[in-house]
């Protein structure tokens, strides 16, 4: 894939998956706009990307719960010529038990994982349509495929976001753009470090590699690593009258 003169906005760029993807894009000479809340960390990643070949890398503030941070990013991105692309890695997952005890936490989860990124992408979409190109990568989760006792609020927010991405794909495709929905299984990140019950854990870089291959091949929905497609196929097909008694 040649990413020369490609602009990539990366939302949630402090996550290790996002970092790995930014690095791979940097090696291809992309112009990167790394967005998140930890500005010191983003500045370090921006320098790192420049050192590894990015033709430009800057850090900008993005808070999924603060719409006022969205506009400046879009405005900065459209100054660049050529294709506009955006990868969304944001989301938050408090313990389900914490949410059960304090239901108002749901607001934040849905804002971080669905409303915030969907609002941002809806602001960016007209510019992508106008340019007749560009790809959106939306990182969902296998948790969005079926509501489970352990994390169904997070799962429902990701399911909502996946449905949004499906609609956005429908919209951008007719304008020459594309949307890739990514559903990672267990990834070896700070979020999963030390959590019991993890298996077949993928490295962030392996996920990033899968994502960029999916972008290149214009895949619609990918599971990464690939075998999660089959795991989730089985899980989705368990009849509800059985599933409701399971705790997986």
């Amino acid at each position: 894939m040649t990413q020369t003169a490609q602009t990539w906005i990366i939302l949630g760029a402090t996550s290790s998956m996002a970092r790995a993807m930014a690095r791979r894009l940097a090696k291809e000479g992309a112009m990167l706009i790394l967005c998140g809340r930890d500005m010191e960390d983003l500045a370090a990643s921006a320098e790192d990307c420049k050192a590894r070949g990015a033709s430009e890398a800057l850090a900008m503030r993005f808070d999924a719960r603060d719409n006022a941070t969205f506009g400046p990013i879009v405005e900065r991105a459209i100054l660049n010529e050529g294709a506009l692309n955006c990868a969304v890695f944001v989301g938050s997952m408090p313990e389900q038990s914490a949410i059960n005890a304090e239901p108002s936490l749901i607001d934040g989860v849905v804002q971080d994982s669905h409303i915030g990124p969907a609002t941002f992408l809806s602001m960016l979409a007209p510019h992508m349509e106008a340019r007749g190109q560009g790809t959106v990568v939306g990182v969902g989760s296998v948790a969005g495929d079926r509501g489970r006792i352990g994390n169904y609020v997070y799962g429902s927010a990701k399911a909502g976001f996946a449905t949004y991405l499906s609609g956005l794909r429908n919209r951008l495709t007719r304008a020459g753009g594309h949307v890739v929905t990514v559903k990672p299984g267990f990834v070896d990140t700070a979020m999963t470090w030390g959590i019991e019950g993890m298996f077949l854990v993928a490295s962030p870089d392996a996920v990033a590699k899968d994502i960029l291959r999916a972008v290149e091949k214009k895949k619609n929905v990918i599971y990464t690593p690939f075998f999660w497609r089959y795991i989730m196929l089985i899980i989705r097909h368990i009849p509800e009258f059985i599933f409701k008694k399971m705790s997986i």
Partner: protein
Amino acid sequence: MTWNTVTYAGWGRARSATGQVARPERQSSLLRDLANFAAPAFGMRRSYGDVALNDGGRAYDMTRLDRVVSFDPETGIVEVEAGIPIGDLGRAFAAKGWIPPVMPGTGFATVGGCIANDVHGKNHHVKGSFGQHVTAITLVQGAEVKTITPKSGAIWKATVGGLGQTGVIAKAKLQLMPCKGDMMVLTERRIDNLDEFLVAFDESKTDYTVGWIDATATGAHLGRGILEEGEITSGINTSKEGAKAVPFNAPGWALSAPVVRVFNELYFRRVPAKGRTSVKPITEPFFPLDAIHDWNRLYGKRGFNQFQCVVPPERVDVLRGMLEKIGASHLASPLAVLKKMGAGRGGYMSFPMEGYTLAVDFPNKDGAEELIKELTDMAQDAGGRIYFAKDGVAEATQVAGMYPEQDKWQRAVEKADPEGAMMTDLVRRLNLRESAKES
């Protein structure tokens, strides 16, 4: 979750540890966690023995803190997070005309590890040790974060080559060296015995010089091998390197004495009798084994130990004695390296000293540890020393006196880490922080 209980090993896999490990992904989380709990740090664990292990205690895995933080193209000074592998740094900057002036034998070693072990490269006789090119270190001592430089005195010299005992290295600034490209002109020629090797080292004019030794050779061929001499040249490597991997532990016979003898014979004859010169991407001569991921599995699940020592230049007799002992043991593996070192060193506990350094891998078989201990005694008697980045076998009494500035290091370490929170398995095994004080 911050702490995860894992079992981890040194590169040789003959030593392992089980304990809680944190793997921060941001500087802010590293600082927060260290303020709560001071513990030693490790990187890619390419040190062979137990210098980076903390069995039963906690440790910080630095591999996710692996970014270039800033670069000044005017001066060539780069600031990096400690977990960046030195080979990544080399690859990122070679195309911009800069290269780390010192690189160890594996590109997977992290910058933090390169500093803590004050590593050397094939150009030690020209450029000295790694630590001599470091211009600043961000050192974290519990809740305290300080920036130290070569002007900071004892704490600097106790940190460079200091085995991580003064605190956790979070970031460092390095002075890169301008380079013409990322290719190397490499000349290889056969050397028939040890005497010839010594002459060849003296006559060598190249920046990068190293000898591969056939440690199975005896008699008239004792010390035979191949001399590699390299210079960086212009040109940019465009080939896509695809690394191979060793998929599983090799069986015990894979590196048995007859196999090694045959392999070494073939390896020796691979280079034509009249020698040869070729141009290669620098990564090949710099990191010859990095092209095979997990090559330590070739030694099987019991792992291996490496013995590396340096002896003063006038003690060639000891070098010869060591090679005789190794040849007679039938325990050597194909990996054996001889190099003439300069005097360059960055800290109190830095390994390099003027003389000859010999490194040999031994599969973790019966008799190997005893042999390594005998070799360690020989190095000690000769006024030489062993390399802590490689050791997993020596006893405390054997290393006494090897490092003449150990007392200065101990005083600085005592001040920096009075609680002993940074101690690792090697430091405990060799009683490094106490031994000289008692005597």
